[in-house]
């Protein structure tokens, strides 16, 4: 593609600017202070996250991107309480988190529905553990299933659902606990591109309709720009905040915006941040293909006469 004349990703329309101003007035839901995570291995210590500082505001949609090995997954697993932090603080509504809990819902990349429970019972799982009676839990669960558009499949088992449907149930299951924040670890990574696009729209719809803050990890830059209010860009070795990009694309979002100048400018900026033009993959220096010409020299695929 030829270089286009794009506006700066920092240019925000008045409307977008006003929205960000309002957003930052809202209460802070998640406050990460100097979060550091070190994995100890027999040979040496690996710093996965180094002094991370970041805040999310109520009902904000934040995407996290970064090159592989930047600790995206470690970050979200630490926030979920599945990994213990080495130092620093993670505050949810001002209170330090302690282990995993239903106040932080999580949707994983792999399918984690309980195969022995029907869709309805999967969604009821957290409610029943929280001590809701079976009746109210079921009523509640059916509403969530309805919200993700799977009311016809309430009694189906997970193996009867497609990948996209499974992830919708997983979202409903996490949301049924009314979490303060929904943590999503590349939830659409395993889906084909068509389903993925549909799921992105579903997710935006769901997010618009309920009071939840979303932290969403992805490696797909289009997805990040399309979904997020702000994009947290991490850098690898060690994982540190590189930049927090405010997405200037107005809401409500729709797929046509993929080609709008603001969208492309933001995406170009993200591209620049995670794949700097002069960089070589730090893990595999000198990793390139040795292209030999294995066809007769006059057999040229680029120029056919």
């Amino acid at each position, binding site marked *: 593609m030829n270089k286009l004349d794009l506006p700066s990703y920092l240019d925000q329309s008045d409307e977008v600017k006003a929205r960000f101003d309002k957003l930052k007035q809202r209460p802070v839901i998640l406050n990460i202070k100097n979060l550091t995570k070190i994995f100890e291995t027999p040979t040496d210590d690996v710093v996965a996250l180094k002094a991370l500082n970041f805040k999310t505001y109520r009902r904000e949609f934040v995407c996290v991107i970064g090159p592989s090995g930047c600790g995206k997954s470690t970050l979200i697993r630490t926030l979920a309480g599945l990994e213990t932090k080495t130092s620093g603080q993670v505050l949810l509504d001002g209170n330090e988190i302690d282990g995993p809990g239903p106040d932080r*819902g999580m949707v994983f990349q792999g399918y984690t529905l309980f195969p*022995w429970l029907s869709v309805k019972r999967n969604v009821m799982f*957290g409610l029943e553990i929280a001590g809701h009676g079976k009746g109210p839990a079921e009523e509640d669960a059916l509403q969530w299933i309805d919200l993700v558009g799977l009311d016809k499949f309430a009694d189906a088992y997970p193996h009867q659902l497609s990948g996209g449907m499974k992830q919708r149930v997983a979202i409903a299951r996490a949301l049924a606990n009314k979490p303060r924040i929904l943590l999503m670890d590349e939830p659409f990574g395993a889906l084909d591109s068509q389903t993925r696009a549909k799921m992105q729209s579903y997710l935006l719809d769901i997010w618009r309709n309920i009071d939840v803050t979303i932290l969403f990890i992805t490696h797909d830059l289009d997805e990040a720009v399309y979904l997020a209010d702000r994009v947290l860009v991490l850098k690898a070795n060690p994982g540190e905040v590189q930049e927090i990009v405010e997405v200037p694309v107005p809401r409500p979002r729709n797929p046509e915006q993929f080609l709008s100048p603001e969208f492309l400018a933001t995406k170009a900026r993200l591209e620049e941040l995670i794949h700097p033009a002069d960089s070589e993959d730090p893990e595999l220096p000198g990793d390139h293909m040795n292209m030999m010409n294995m066809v007769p020299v006059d057999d040229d695929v680029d120029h056919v006469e």
Partner: protein
Amino acid sequence: MSASSILRRKLKQYQNFILATLSFIIPLTVWSIVSYVPYVWHPKVEITVPGDVSYFSEGLLVDREIFEREKANVLAEGKAIPEGLPANPIYFPAPDEVASAFYTAFVTEPTRRNEKWLHESLWDSIKVIFWGFVISSIFGVPLGVLMGTYRIFSKLNEPFIEFFRYLPAPAFGALAVAILGIHQGPKIAIIFIGTFFQQVLVIANTTRKLDPMLVEAALTLGAKRTSLLFKVVLPGISTNLFRDLRILLGWAWTYLIVAELIGSSSGITWFITQQARYKNFDNVYAAIMMIGIIGLSSDIILRLIGKHLFPWEQHKSLS
């Protein structure tokens, strides 16, 4: 086409049925050919007319070489020649003999009053297996699940169990008789010893294979220790646990014969040893087959029960 679709192609229902039937018909055919087609094997001759050979009598089985030699001898002396039909050794009865023995074994009254009918002996065997297996499972399943879930249980128990499972169960026979008497007690104990230690290790291993992602998902949904064990670990391993138990029940049957020889011989083993003593080998074969039939049908019943217990597993075959 993926590799699995080429290597493990799904078969249609009728194909499955035909193959399952063939798996029995092929060995039966081989058995029939060896039994009924003369000179395929038939190393013996059954005398029909003794002729002038002094020690031949009707119905006697002799080696074919001996028969030919004696026949040549009497022929040379000009006496009456013996006649006979090719036959297999007595320890290799034909299918029809075993089939009729199968029937008559059930309807033959015991020779002595204190002896049991065959179906009573079989029932005794089934009870020994049942109690041995149930007692083993009552302790083995919970211990295995705990060991697979919590490292402290596995480190505390596994080394000893790994040691103990190498001790052959029959070695405890004399000890079991001394402690538990000569009747069913020691037999059940042998089945228990033979099953329990394997069972604990197999179930601990099955428990460890539960997808850790499911546990993590449950944690983020608010599950704590107890709810994790009862609402995630147990249901998560239930299908594999059930399959393990089916396989282990099969192993328990393999300890049956040894177990029943301990103390006063009883059950199907008593029948087998008794019949072998009288050289009724057709009855011996019939009894061995009964064990196979009981084992296979109990497994089929358990498999059907499994299909009802685990409706979410129907897309996979519970093999």
